């Protein structure tokens, strides 16, 4: 079906998407918690900033990432000085781009599931002697978990499809930053690449479909109050 080289592209896509979502999960959870529970000035602005990658042209997001992660940029300079690494033209850069693009979806899903946790249950836990951390660990987290998982799967599907920000930020380097969408784009530019396009597009649709179905099933089970774990 797929050649080893094409499997490599699929594997790279899964790696980039997986790392992107798992690495941004703690940040997404923190942001979702702030937006769901905390009151502070500038909350509307933070909400808008988190959602920005959803509406800004991906090429703009990619360009902004390029400015930030360039060797002289604010984040790139810091990475260079402290760790001697750069994400430019590396798969880690592709993961950064995917993470930024998936973040709004993650935050949204987690925020909704946190808002759905009945705060009266948390109050009950407090009166039973549980401090804030134990209440979070034993009540808030398990009750919001289905939404978190659904968000992770959805964010992962989004990360798999990331194109504009990735190609602008880390270019189209085969074996390093060339994920499925980028490989399809490259094949389209090549005369006689139609067969390859067809196979890669098939793999892409299949992966996305599985991720969406998993996300939907989990969300529905959560909606019925069933336990997913």
């Amino acid at each position, binding site marked *: 079906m797929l050649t080893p080289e094409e499997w490599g592209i699929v594997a790279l896509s899964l790696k980039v998407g997986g790392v992107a979502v798992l690495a941004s999960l703690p940040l997404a959870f923190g942001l979702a918690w702030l937006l769901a529970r905390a009151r502070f000035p500038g909350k509307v602005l933070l909400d808008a900033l988190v959602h920005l990658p959803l509406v800004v042209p991906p090429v703009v997001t990619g360009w902004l990432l390029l400015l930030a992660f360039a060797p002289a940029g604010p984040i790139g300079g810091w990475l260079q000085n402290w760790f001697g690494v750069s994400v430019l033209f590396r798969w880690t850069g592709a993961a950064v781009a995917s993470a930024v693009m998936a973040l709004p979806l993650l935050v949204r899903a987690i925020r909704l599931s946190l808002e759905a946790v*009945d705060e*009266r*249950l948390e*109050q*009950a*836990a*407090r*009166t*039973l*002697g*549980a*401090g804030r951390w134990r209440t979070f660990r*034993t*009540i808030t987290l*398990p*009750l919001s978990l289905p939404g978190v998982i659904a968000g992770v799967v959805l964010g992962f599907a989004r990360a798999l499809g990331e194109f504009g920000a990735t190609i602008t930020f880390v270019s189209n380097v085969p074996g390093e930053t060339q994920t499925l969408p980028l490989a399809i784009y490259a094949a389209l530019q090549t005369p006689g690449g139609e067969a390859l396009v067809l196979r890669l597009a098939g793999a892409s649709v299949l992966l996305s479909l599985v991720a969406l179905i998993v996300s939907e099933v989990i969300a529905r089970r959560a909606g019925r*109050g069933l*336990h997913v774990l």
Partner: protein
Amino acid sequence: MSFDVDVALRRGEAAIVCRIESGDGLTVLFGPSGAGKTSVLNMVAGLLTPDIGHVRVGGEALFDAAAGLDLLPERRRAGYVFQEPRLFPHQRVRANLLYGWRVGEGAVDVDETVGLLGLAGLLDRWPRSLSGGEARRVAIGRAILSNPRFLLLDEPLSSLDRARREEIMALIERLRDELALPILMVTHDRGEAERLGSRIVEI
């Protein structure tokens, strides 16, 4: 003195003012719906902060606006039975009962409490499969097993049919007489108030 409460809280247009000085046994906080009875319980439990005043239970200060004292809810050791059972839906009855269970001095005996409340047959059930009366009994058991220094009962008899009311009422009388804990109970039913209360405070 078991409950020594003198609190005031402004909420928009309305103000909740309450003063309770009671001896041992069960004190009933009685008044019409919307008078702020539940808010008073929340202030005693530490879930709501009064603007001014103090809350002392059994001689220990839990809140004192003048002294800047405001114990966290988890430090007050209130056995709070809310108006709704508030059982944790992702835990079975057994885990719910043991959520606040403390090992150590004066710990309540689990088997004894399970027996007293007739919960033995419910331990492996999920909260959503319980009837209203069963859920309320579990909530009472969970509060007692947290080894509280006092009990707060918010309308423990509401939304129960006659047989269940009688059962829970008898249970509260047993708790009052056997556990010797100070109990503060909210109700809007005068019959309940007169039958159970050693002292009735109107709000």
